[in-house]
């Protein structure tokens, strides 16, 4: 366990240490709030914090909360996922503030296990950054686009 006297400890770097503490606090609150909503299908759905919160580098005044919901498309259908996404979006809005969510921005996406495990190295590889401005290679629109329909 490192201490503040350890030259190789994040505690020696105040802005980074503060961001780490802030990120952990907000993610802990999200965990508690989202757990009951996920309960019924927690075995088939996983929510990832990504971006600055995923890196534990979020800052109160400037960081958006970005997330990615991965689901087992053999056990959960698209409508269930859309409903779930809508519910957790409301929860995240209450914790981070609606103007700090990545709705209509970069993330707030869903992704299937099939997408994650196929076409690795191919030209249709699912990678959020690679197709953010366009429809999914299979024709499905990014989640943010659904919200605008």
């Amino acid at each position, binding site marked *: 366990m*490192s201490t503040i006297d350890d030259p190789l400890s994040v505690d020696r770097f105040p802005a*980074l240490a503060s961001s780490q503490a802030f990120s952990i606090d907000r993610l802990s609150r999200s965990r508690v709030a989202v757990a009951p909503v996920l309960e019924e299908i927690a075995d088939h759905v996983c929510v990832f914090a990504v971006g600055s919160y995923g890196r534990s580098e979020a800052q109160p005044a400037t960081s958006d909360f970005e997330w990615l919901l991965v689901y087992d498309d053999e056990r959960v259908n698209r409508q269930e996922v859309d409903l779930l996404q809508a519910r957790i979006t409301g929860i995240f809005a209450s914790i981070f503030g609606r103007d700090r969510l990545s709705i209509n921005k970069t993330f707030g996406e869903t992704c299937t296990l099939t997408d994650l495990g196929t076409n*690795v190295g191919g030209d249709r590889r699912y990678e959020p950054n690679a197709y953010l401005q366009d429809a999914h290679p299979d024709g499905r629109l990014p989640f943010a686009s659904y919200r605008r329909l």
Partner: protein
Amino acid sequence: MLILTEGCPLLPTAAYDQVISLLAKVYAGTSTAGHRLLSLATEIARYWRTLRIDYKFKVDELGKPWGVRSLKLRSARRLSYLASAVHFVAFGPRIHYAGAHRFGLLAVADFMKTLGGSPVARLLEATRKLGGGDGELERVLNLYDSIHRELGKPEVRAHLDRPNAEYRFDDDIYELLRRQVRDLHSALADYVVHLPKEPRQQLIEMFLL
């Protein structure tokens, strides 16, 4: 790669284990894995290169604001890439062909679970394990801390997305941060140069060549 290297599961559900097991099987389950899991190392490098060139596309062709985007790319995302690479060299699974021809997928999954979260924490842990570059890392983190603090100020961010790129060198706020990210780049390279020879060699082989 986003999930693995910059993601954090909100809840360690069975689905999380399923995601990681799937990725372990995809990258380590066949003969294309490489004895140092080069298939995954290559994806990490490709992800970073994609982010870099995606910046050009977003600014040049989509006309997105460039100031904050550029500085974040040259600080947080660059440091995150190096943290993943050094962490991979320090803790990544290996096959020693004399004794085995395949990876243990559980060990690969366990490793993948350590790839995400705080890049600073990963860089610190890897540096401890590799036993070198401490002084250089301290310089890296001092610079990064300063850049991170400035980019956390709303007024700085708002300012940075205003200047015309043509006149960017005349902008004091941008110029100060540009110098810092340039120094950070140099300090990161210096850190790599001061790693012990064997991990440095591996870093070059796996993430550069």
